[in-house]
């Protein structure tokens, strides 16, 4: 049992890791320019390191959130209705009934730790490796603001607060792509940044409309109240609200065919931007689906779940096929996210324990593995000054043996090789699709399962194609470039945690699965 004193401590830690990055970012901007530029990365590493420690302090063996059952099923006896901890609940905009209500449970804590970890690694990476344009002070400050916004969204227990945090993240990300993006293609990166911000804002506008409809039905924005007494009925206004929320979040996930902003944004963003974007920001969408859509609008979710599953399955196949046709390493990895997020969407759409846990697991695994992949792609891009496959040339095994070996490892992890982290999430999602919630049409989900299974083969195909095009080949035809330095120390330090976690979660999935014990 969590004692009150303990919970006060957790609440303090949560507030601290929410406030610290924002205050630190403001302080960084307040510093004199030259001093700020020099110290920015170190400063960012220290601050985000503190946030990481704080987020780990929140990791207590808590119970699951609440039973994710459709319809009006009651909780099992003895199960806590509100296993939240670190709760702070104060009025914020009383006239609208909006409260500053934050707290964490076993769903949000792993995601918060992932956020803190990736931000920390990005700052450490920036100690030595920076975008050509410089301006590190602003870059680090923006990263810290993003971190605060994302942690806020993962801990918000109020719909409006969630929306605000969701929006806070967008502008810094837009700036990061626009300013620090690909320096060979200024119009391209501006277009990518604009598409990203416009589509996401469009999505969140729809989501806000959905929230307002929920408010009209239930009279509150509070997620805990909404979860404990959800908006039932799968027709009319609840259905419209569910549709709006689902489409709004689907832009962020991104779900086919709303994914069009993603390849450009990832390909043009700087390395740290891509890592944060893929590793953390995409998770906001799936987290929103699990946290808000499923528990708050259970009946309406059942109505739209088959469509969600269908679009997710199309995303898996179409994303993988698109990957097969890519000629740019960063774009390819970006497109691979469409397929992987499709698996997560399918897992949520099954509404079954296995599918949900699979989606949650795949969320974390995708963050770790794709983060690693983008770090590697960035390293290759920095060394060759291009991310075009043909220009980079082949035979990286001969030119950059360690980086190429790590790339192969990351590709194998990402294609879902059993024994590495990528497998368990996808396996559980497929298991969930084999045995979806009773209220869903089973035959439909069997078709989804088979198609998604074939999608894993296509995933393997494009990653092997990448390895073949990039790592293998005749070294005589592709001699080493002048600046081809293999794995540097800072890269090794930054990537080691990601590699370790990939293996650890692969051989011991229980580490995370236990967290969601009573889910």
């Amino acid at each position, binding site marked *: 049992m969590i004692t009150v004193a303990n919970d006060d401590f957790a609440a303090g830690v949560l507030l601290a890791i929410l406030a610290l990055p924002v205050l630190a970012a403001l302080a960084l901007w307040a510093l004199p320019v030259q001093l700020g530029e020099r110290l920015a990365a170190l400063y960012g590493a220290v601050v985000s390191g503190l946030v990481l420690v704080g987020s780990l302090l929140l990791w207590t063996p808590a119970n699951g959130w609440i039973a994710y059952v459709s319809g009006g099923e009651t909780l099992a006896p003895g199960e806590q209705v509100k296993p939240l901890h670190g709760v702070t609940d104060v009025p914020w905009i009383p006239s609208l009934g909006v409260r500053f209500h934050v707290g964490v449970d076993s769903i949000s804590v792993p995601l918060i730790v992932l956020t803190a970890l990736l931000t920390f690694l990005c700052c450490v990476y920036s100690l030595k490796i920076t975008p050509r344009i410089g301006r590190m002070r602003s870059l680090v400050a923006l990263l810290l603001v993003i971190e605060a916004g994302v942690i806020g969204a993962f801990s918000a227990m109020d719909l409006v607060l969630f929306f605000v945090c969701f929006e806070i993240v967008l502008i810094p990300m837009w700036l990061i792509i626009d300013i620090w993006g690909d320096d060979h293609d200024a119009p391209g990166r501006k277009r990518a940044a*604009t*598409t990203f911000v*416009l*589509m996401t804002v469009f999505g969140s506008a729809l989501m806000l409309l959905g929230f307002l409809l929920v408010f009209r039905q239930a009279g509150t924005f509070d997620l805990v109240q909404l979860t404990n007494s959800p908006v039932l009925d799968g027709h009319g206004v609840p259905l419209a609200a569910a549709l709006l929320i689902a489409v709004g979040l689907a832009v962020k996930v991104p779900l086919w*065919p709303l*994914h*069009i*902003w993603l*390849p450009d944004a990832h390909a043009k963003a700087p390395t740290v931007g891509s890592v944060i974007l893929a590793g953390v920001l995409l998770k906001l969408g799936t987290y929103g689906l699990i946290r808000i859509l499923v528990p708050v609008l259970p009946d309406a979710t059942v109505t739209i779940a088959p469509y969600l599953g269908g679009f997710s399955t199309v995303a898996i196949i*179409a994303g993988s*096929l*698109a*990957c*097969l*046709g*890519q000629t740019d390493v960063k774009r390819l990895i970006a497109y691979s996210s469409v397929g992987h997020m499709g698996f997560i969407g399918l897992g949520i759409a099954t509404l*079954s*324990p*296995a599918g949900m*846990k699979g989606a949650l697991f795949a969320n974390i695994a995708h963050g770790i593995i794709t983060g690693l992949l983008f770090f590697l792609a960035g390293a290759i891009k920095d060394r060759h000054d291009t991310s075009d496959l043909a220009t980079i040339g082949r*035979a990286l*095994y*001969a030119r950059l043996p360690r980086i190429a*070996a790590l790339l*192969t490892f990351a590709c*194998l992890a990402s294609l879902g*090789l*059993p*024994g590495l982290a990528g*497998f368990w999430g996808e*396996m*559980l999602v*497929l*298991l969930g699709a*084999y*045995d979806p919630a009773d209220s869903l049409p089973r035959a439909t989900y069997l078709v989804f*399962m*088979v198609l998604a*299974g*074939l999608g*894993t*083969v*296509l995933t*393997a*195909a494009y990653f*092997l*194609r990448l390895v*073949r095009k990039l*790592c*293998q*080949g*005749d*070294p*005589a035809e592709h001699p080493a470039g002048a600046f081809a330095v293999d794995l540097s120390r800072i890269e090794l330090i930054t990537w080691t945690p990601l590699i370790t976690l990939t293996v650890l979660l692969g051989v*011991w*999935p*229980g580490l995370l*699965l*236990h967290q969601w*014990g009573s889910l």
Partner: protein
Amino acid sequence: MIATVWRVAGVGFSLLLVLIAALLYGDSASQHAFLNSQIGEVTIGFAVRTDDLTVLLLAVVGVVATCVQIYSLGYLHERAASYHALVTLFTAAMAAVVVADSLFLLLIGWEVMGACSYLLISHYWERREARSGAVKAFLMTRLADVGFLFGIFVLGVGAGTFRISALDPAQIDPGVLTTGTLLLLVGVVGKSAQVPLQTWLPDAMPGPSPVSALIHAATMVAAGVFLIARLYDVFAASATTMTVLAIVACVTMLYAALCAAAAVEVKRVLAWSTVSQLAIMFAALSLGTHEGRHAALFHLVTHAAFKGLLFLCAGVLLHQVGSAAFVVLRRYTRRGRLRKALPVTFVTMTIGLAALAGVPGFAGFFSKDSVLEAAWEHAHGGSVVGWFVLVSVGLTAGLTAFYCMRLWLWVFFRTPALAGAVGAFEADDPMADLEDPDTSKLKDASWLMLAPLVLLALGAIALGYVDGLHLNWVVALASTVVVIFGVLPAYSLWSRGADPRPVLLEREFGVDRAYHALFVVPVRWLSKLSVLGDRDVVGAYVRAVGRSGALASQGFRLLQTGNVQTYLTAAVVGVVALAVLAGVIAS
């Protein structure tokens, strides 16, 4: 330095497996579960077990892996660190499959083996055929593994457990049982390169020969046989699955033996022969009897010894001569040099081929006969499947003897008819008419490589007798006659200097080309379509919205005249309009 560490670790680990197998020998069967998580109604986690089957397979894996690791010390000089590390990882994965009692642990080992196989086939990644062979091997087995995973779901959810020892066929609905075992069979067919997923194994041959010996002959491809033997109760409970298995096995063994009879490269012959011999094991399993399972496992063990031996011998040829293609080897054989320069290799390879062909007295003879015997008894019981298996294995035995004799004669003996000409294989290589190669420096490999050959050659003879001699003389006699009928045409063709290869067999029945047209080309088209669709359809909507936004903003710019009176008028009109509208709605 790192390479040395991995060399030592590799040899040490495989010896450890042998030791574990020796220690576990005779122990009573037991299981142990760990790291489990409850998900809904099912438990996902790991479990290991030990029983006779585990010990047997551990011993096979350990011994072959030790031979291969030691042999590789002499065989392989470049990229030794990654090579030995991957072989060790592979051995560990195979051990995981063998000891697994949880279907998920089994799946992990199963797929990690596939990944190691991929990485090791592409060990010589500067060669084009190694790259494409590796990708093909991984994708075909991965496709089959999707079926395997679904089979695990069906059986696991149907039985409510993912523990192998807890799967009870009596508790599972027959329809579920058949579906589940058929899906598992898909994975088995892929892993063991049976029809229709057979084409990857011959193309995996550009990998280093010791890898072919370990992965593509003795252990990984035999994992399918192991799996069915492990789940024999479950498989045997479904007659449909067993019939499908019998058909697949019989078609495969004849198909692969025919392909082997027309292949013109030592390793390719051996690869097709592996496919064919694995099919014999599956045929024995498909009988569904205790004798069938016993015969299959017996053949698995002897096959691991003699086929591992043969691949290692092919490796010596590659290492010392530089090629294992018939046309190159013929140039060395014209003066009979190959046999004299490589005496140990010649003798051990002869033993291996004799065992493969089923010459009486060698291990392959006994194990193949036990398959025939099991089929004979089953057929006598009135089973159509039994007859089917009996006839197919008999025919395959004849074909096997034919291609073994063909390989042996053409590689090691000068043809009397052509008096030393390159003869039958020159069409394969325009360089064939060149001068005789310099054979004075040709010598046998180092003892590091030859010692494993001798050990396995001893195994290829002695393993036939470990099971106790209980021959059915009728079957033994019949199979000997079949072997003679296979050997004679090979000898006769060779002595006339002819090697007729029908086009159909040379192209391996055109399966590869058909698969390319049916699967690879459409996927490429779809991928192009998908990229274009994203750019020109989905992207077009987004661009259109952007453009209409820009147009609209230009329109609004016209309104911004800077004239206060215009603004004021517009505001008043707007307020009036809203008031009217509100009134209408309210009423």
